[in-house]
Structures are given as structure tokens and as C-alpha cells.
């Protein structure tokens, strides 16, 4: 084939591409079928959320935070409330803390179920998508019965939560997590030893732990590379230190491990929810907080572990009722930044699998 002329060429993946989970554009430099260089182009969903927050009171910012990362909006409410509570020195009632933990973990399960479905669908298996969304629906019903919303909850507020649990919540929550526990066997049976799944994911997209730390990669993606780091345990917030659970890690750092770790985490979340339901105390659900409270001048960075890694909010107050600066930091931002450094030298079809396994959500990147 000596006379055949070859050259590198550029392919645009996205912004409207089913596997980019939003509007992300990847400019790929290709050598035949092999990806040589990736350049992410973002900003299609930039809505200036941080600027909007500067013109609103702290309580009015909470619905904005829902739009930041809508798949786990509870975590966004939580991290936002935490930052404001630390600024103003607000103590949260015991019952509210328990309710928060239950909601956060339910939301984590719901998010991982979406991950399970859409990742499999990106790689070409349709059935897991139907399974994942069916079980997620049961969790969304729990949220709907509590706060009336299915996606953007505005439920966790500075000082506590907005509404108490309805009396049928606890039994229905117990039956839902028991059901999900049982269905997990189906999930594992569908994919864990499926030869096509193994061929598409095993050894694909190896992420070195050193590279992951250098680029600030966090959450399940970091732990799938063998780094034992979870904010719930290592920088404890709320009441996570009271429960008996363990941080899951996987050693290989490939797409298959990034998939397995999500299933591991669902099991741990179920464990936490069971304990929180057992220990749920009676009492107040909200501390007395004025709607236009003015925290004293100061600043802090609050962080929680959500299903996509570290979710952080920096908040600076000057003593007014509106924040001087709000900065939101999402896990997807760093994961996408790291992608060009480990996602190359593979087929374009593998890149789809790698991208899906990072579980990136674009509103969090663009804000």
C-alpha cells in the first residue's frame, strides 16, 4: 500500500449528539478510526447562574442551584444551604439532618440508575435503559409525594427542609429500597458477564490515578482508579459519620470498573438509607431563619459528594442579604478537562463508551 496517501482529519462529535448527554462538542483529530486528539468545546448551556445568584437573596438562590445539576438537584440544594448556614452560623434540627441524608442518598441512587441506563444505551444495549428508568420512577415518586417536584426540588433550604415527610413516606421508602435491592441482581445479571459488554468496556479508557488527582477528577471515577477518597468520610458533613458504611474502590481504572463502582455505591446508599430510616427522630424540620437573613461578612467553600464527584460552592458575604460572590464547582467540569489526556489512541466507538462512563452532565460544566 506504499502509494496510498493518508492524512489526519477533524470530526465534530456534537454539539447535538445522543451520547454527549447535553450539548457538548468534541473536536476530534482522527487518524482513520483512531482518535489522536480531543478538544472539548463547551459553553452552549452557559446561563450565567453565578451572576444571577449575586442579585438574589440566599433563599432565592436555592431554586437556581437546582438548575445547576438537575439529575441530583438535592445535592445542589444541600451544598448551597451548607455554605449559607456556615456563613450565618445556623444550627439544623436533628430530624432535618436525617431527612436530608435520606433524600441525598435516594437522589444518588436515582442518578446512578440513570447512569446505568444511558451508559448501556450509548454502548448499544437498550434493555438496561428501560430497567434503570423504571426503578428510578419509584424514587421520583417518593420525592414527588414529599415536595411536589420530580426533578428540581427546592426542598433542602438554609435551616432545614421545606416540608415534613408525609406519614406514608417511611413505609413506601422501605419497600422501594427493598425492591431496588432485589432488582440489582437483574442489573448485574444483564451486563456483568455479558461478553459483548466486557469486550466493549474491559481495558477501555484506562485512567491513571496520578493523572486523575492532578486534574481534580473526583467521585466514582476517581475511586474506580483505586484512590480511596470520599468526602462523606474524609471531610464529613451533615451526619454521615453516624452511619456504618464503607467507601467503595475498584483497582483497574477502566470503563468496566467505572460501571461496577456505581452498582457498589447503590448498595452502600441503600445501607445508609436503612439506618437513617431506623434512626429518624421526631421534632422540628426547620430552624427559625428569616427569609432575608444577613450572614456576617465572611466566606467559605462547602463541598459534598454527589453522584458525579465533588460538588462545591464558594460563597462570600459582605453582611448584606445578597451574596457578593457565588461560585459553583461541579465534578463534571474536571472530568471533562481530564478527558483529552486519557481518552485518545482508541477507536471513536470506544470514546463514546469512555465519555458515557464519566457520567458528565453539561449544565454543571457550563453553568
Amino acid at each position, binding site marked *: 500500500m506504499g502509494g496510498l496517501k493518508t492524512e489526519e482529519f477533524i470530526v465534530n462529535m456534537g454539539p447535538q449528539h445522543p451520547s454527549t448527554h447535553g450539548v457538548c462538542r468534541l473536536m476530534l483529530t482522527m487518524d482513520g478510526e483512531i482518535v489522536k486528539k480531543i478538544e472539548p468545546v463547551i459553553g452552549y448551556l452557559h446561563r450565567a447562574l453565578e451572576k444571577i445568584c449575586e442579585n438574589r437573596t440566599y433563599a432565592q438562590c436555592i431554586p437556581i442551584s437546582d438548575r445547576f445539576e438537575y439529575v441530583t438537584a438535592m445535592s445542589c440544594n444541600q451544598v448551597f444551604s451548607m455554605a449559607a448556614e456556615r*456563613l450565618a*452560623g445556623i444550627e439544623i434540627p436533628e430530624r432535618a439532618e436525617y431527612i436530608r441524608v435520606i433524600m441525598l442518598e435516594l437522589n444518588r441512587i436515582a442518578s446512578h440508575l440513570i447512569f446505568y441506563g444511558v451508559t448501556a444505551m450509548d454502548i448499544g444495549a437498550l434493555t438496561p435503559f428501560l430497567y434503570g428508568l423504571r426503578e428510578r420512577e419509584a424514587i421520583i415518586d417518593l420525592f414527588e409525594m414529599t415536595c411536589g417536584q420530580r426533578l428540581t426540588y427546592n426542598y433542602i433550604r438554609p435551616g432545614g427542609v421545606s416540608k415534613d415527610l408525609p406519614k406514608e413516606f417511611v413505609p413506601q421508602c422501605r419497600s422501594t429500597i427493598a425492591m431496588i435491592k432485589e432488582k440489582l441482581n437483574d442489573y448485574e445479571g444483564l451486563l456483568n458477564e455479558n461478553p459483548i459488554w466486557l469486550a466493549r468496556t474491559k481495558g477501555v479508557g484506562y485512567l491513571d490515578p496520578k493523572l486523575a488527582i*492532578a486534574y*481534580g477528577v473526583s467521585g466514582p471515577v476517581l475511586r474506580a482508579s483505586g484512590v480511596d477518597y470520599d468526602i462523606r468520610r474524609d471531610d464529613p458533613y451533615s451526619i454521615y459519620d453516624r452511619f456504618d458504611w464503607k467507601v467503595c474502590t475498584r483497582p483497574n481504572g477502566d470503563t468496566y470498573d467505572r460501571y461496577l463502582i456505581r452498582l457498589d455505591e447503590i448498595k452502600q446508599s441503600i445501607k445508609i438509607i436503612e439506618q437513617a430510616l431506623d434512626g429518624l427522630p421526631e421534632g422540628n424540620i426547620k430552624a427559625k431563619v428569616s427569609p*432575608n437573613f444577613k450572614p456576617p461578612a465572611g466566606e*467559605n467553600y462547602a463541598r459534598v459528594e454527589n453522584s458525579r464527584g465533588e460538588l462545591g460552592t464558594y460563597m462570600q458575604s459582605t453582611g448584606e442579604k445578597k451574596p457578593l460572590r457565588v*461560585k459553583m464547582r461541579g465534578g463534571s467540569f474536571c472530568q471533562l478537562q481530564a478527558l483529552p489526556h486519557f481518552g485518545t489512541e482508541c477507536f471513536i466507538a470506544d470514546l463514546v463508551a469512555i465519555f458515557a462512563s464519566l457520567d458528565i452532565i453539561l449544565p454543571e460544566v457550563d453553568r
Partner: protein
Amino acid sequence: MTKEQLQTAITEKLGDKMTLLDTGRHDLMYEVKRENLLEVCKTLKDDESLAFDYYLNSHGVDTKEKFEVVYNLASIIHKTRIDFKVILPYDSAEIESVQTIWPGANWFEREMWELYGINVLNHDNLTRFLLADDWDKGFPMRKDWDAPGFIRMPEL
């Protein structure tokens, strides 16, 4: 490592270059002079008793009098957290890039350059990021910038 131990370690290693501020509400908050930035960052990352290898976040703040650049770091080994900020005057808003120390700083600095107009020196890719490619309407995160047609909400 507890917060007190961390504070002692910082005083020991970088006491003359980092000043503790009392505005931090949860984690330690320091101020660093602009000329010491790279030296402080190197020590924070490479010194074994500090080992801040995990770059979480950085961003600009406009206080109407000056710019602040805030860095949030964590250590995976010691499980500690630290924040520090560099204060920049309005008329010479430029700062050294820290991406040679933490590669993850790249995009955060790019965002800061674009939204605040803070010039980042020795950065390898200062190009349009979140805003449109042909954006020419200034730096939207600055306090004196309002969107065209923006009407402020009435005070409650």
C-alpha cells in the same frame, strides 16, 4: 491531621508568606502576596507534611474595590482542606498561572480570564471558553457590568 496541626505546619513552613484571615467560616483562609504565589504553591504541593496535591477550585471575586483570586485545595493523604487568596488591584489585574503545579488549574484560569478580565501569565490556552466565540461586550462577572436590558429586581 487536624486543623490545628495543619495551622502549625503552615506557620512553620510558610509563616512569613501566608497570613491567616479571620473571614474563613469553616476551613483555614490565608492571604498570599502576588509575588510569592508560585513559591507558596510549590511548597504547599511538594512538602510532605502539607501535600496539597488535589486542586479543587479557583475563581475570581470582584469586591468593587479590588479583585481577589481564591484557591481551594485539598490533600488526599492528610485529608485536609485549605483556602487562600491573592488580592489584585483593579488597575493591574494579572496573576501567574499555577497550571505547571496543578494541571487541573487550566480551565479554571481560562474561565477567570474570560469572565473577569484577569490576565493569566504563562497560560498555554487563553481562548474563548464559556462565552460565544465573537463575544466583545466586556467582562460579564465584573460588578459594574449589567446585561443589556437588565432590570434589577425591586428591593424587598
